[in-house]
């Protein structure tokens, strides 16, 4: 049973660039959430996707956007990168309708902005 997978593992970008991170949910899961984990901090919720729509969003600017595909995989896009966007980006998947549900996390993508 494949768990949550993310790509790439590491990424280095420069300020002002744009980046796309990818996530494949755990088999059978239909809901994807994205979190940002800055160095020395706990993960912070960015947004959640279900049925290809963003249904909840944390306190992040519009530079952060996402997408969910019909196969439930998801992308996180960040435009106009800032130094402060350097972090570990975690994807988590869960199954809608199972209450209470549990989120399963991928290994993360380490983004470094220079």
């Amino acid at each position, binding site marked *: 049973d494949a768990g949550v997978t993310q790509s790439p593992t590491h990424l280095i970008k420069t300020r002002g660039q744009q980046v796309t991170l990818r996530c494949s949910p755990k088999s059978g899961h239909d809901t994807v959430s994205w979190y940002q984990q800055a160095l020395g901090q*706990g993960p912070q919720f960015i947004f959640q996707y279900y049925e290809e729509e963003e249904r909840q969003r944390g306190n992040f600017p519009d530079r952060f956007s996402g997408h969910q595909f019909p196969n439930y995989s998801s992308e996180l896009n960040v435009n106009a990168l800032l130094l402060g966007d350097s972090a570990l980006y975690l994807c988590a998947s869960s199954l809608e309708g199972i*209450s209470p549900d549990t*989120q399963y996390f991928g*290994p993360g993508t380490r983004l470094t902005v220079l």
Partner: protein
Amino acid sequence: AQSVTQLDSQVPVFEEAPVELRCNYSSSVSVYLFWYVQYPNQGLQLLLKYLSGSTLVESINGFEAEFNKSQTSFHLRKPSVHISDTAEYFCAVTPSNSGYSTLTFGKGTMLLVSP
């Protein structure tokens, strides 16, 4: 809104000693509580969770946590730690009355086990 406080950023302990990692939360609604563990350069793994019922929950690797509603706490304990328990531990909550499972995390506690 919810918030989670993990008062200890680091907890050093010797192998085979007991340990307690503290977690307090604030919420205006009922919550579910979780402990996640993060090993170096890895993602988060669910360690244990409290949803309802018995306030004492256990993991398969010897950790336990007790939900205390009056003190709004969910402290994590292990009677005897191993070197392999060295990792970052995160406490998290999610509203129990919401259809959406988004987690609010604490800042984490680094457990450092030495021989």
